[in-house]
């Protein structure tokens, strides 16, 4: 232990914070009352930590790029099309795909809370749920996109989608030029989570951000 930097907490022996204790207390209370099985909680945590994530959405995007029939099905009925790949369920029961084109750029937000298409993107990042994003995405989407490193020409139509109802939105990014001939798998590896929210563009080199 002598080489450790003791400025950060070690999970294995740091005291639990007050809030962690409060959650532990609540869980024990509900378990004792026979209302929850902790194994069920473990299963939910594991599902969102390991099983559901943006790789799902990336597969949908790559398939849409390479298979025109799939893309047609996707744009017609997203929920059924993603179910073909085995994706669906909680917070993705009714989905909409919005397609980026050379003249249209889409950006998704939930100003009122944090609504997000969980089955294809997993849990949202902190920034998506944060006050700055929620407040500004609808008011100054170009400013937001600039912060994410995207500068759009004035002629591009920026469409912001505020997820106020139970429709969940997925951006279908533009396929990068020069990617013709790439396999579906290789294409999927290029698609970042941010590109499916609208805060990134898909580039030919492997993604460096989520």
């Amino acid at each position, binding site marked *: 232990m002598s080489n450790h930097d003791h400025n950060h907490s070690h*999970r294995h022996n740091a*005291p*639990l*914070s*007050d*809030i*962690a*204790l*409060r*959650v*532990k*207390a*609540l*869980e*024990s*209370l*509900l378990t004792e*009352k026979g*209302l*929850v099985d902790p194994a*069920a*909680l*473990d299963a*939910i*945590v594991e599902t*969102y*930590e390991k099983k559901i994530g943006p790789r799902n959405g990336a597969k949908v995007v790559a398939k849409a790029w390479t298979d025109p029939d799939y893309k047609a099905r996707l744009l017609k009925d997203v929920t059924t099309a993603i179910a073909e790949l085995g994706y669906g369920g*909680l917070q993705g029961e009714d989905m909409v795909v919005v397609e980026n084109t050379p003249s249209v750029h889409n950006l998704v937000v939930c*100003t*009122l*809370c*944090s609504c997000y298409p969980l089955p294809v993107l*997993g*849990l949202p*990042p*902190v*920034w998506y*749920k*944060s*006050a*700055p*994003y*929620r*407040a*500004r995405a*609808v*008011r100054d989407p170009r400013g*937001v996109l600039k*912060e*994410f490193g995207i500068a759009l020409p004035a002629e591009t139509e920026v469409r912001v989608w*505020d997820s106020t109802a139970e429709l969940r939105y997925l951006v279908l990014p533009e396929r990068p030029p020069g990617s013709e001939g790439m396999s579906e798998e290789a294409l999927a590896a290029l698609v970042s989570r941010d590109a499916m929210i609208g805060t990134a563009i898909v580039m030919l080199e492997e993604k460096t*951000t*989520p």
Partner: protein
Amino acid sequence: MNGIHDMGGMDGFGPIEREAEEPVFHEAWEGRVLALTRGCGAWGKWNIDRSRSGIEQMPPAEYLRASYYEKWLWRLEKLLVDAGMVTREEIERRYAETKQAAETP
């Protein structure tokens, strides 16, 4: 309600902060809160709209200060108490006991 949660168009929140390689949960308790909330919702004692309404009732200063999953915990306790699944006294008592046990070597 015309609450603090209705943020679209508000100014003054500053830049959007992003974390590289962000973990799904920053602390284990966050995952537990998510699981408890989703799981308890399955009982049907409340619905998703009532659940969202819960968070909206947080006092504005607390809402702005709290992290995302801190909001979820606040909301979960409120929903459980309102639904009669636990009482506020039970929650506080168990918390005090748990804290006491953790502080005792």
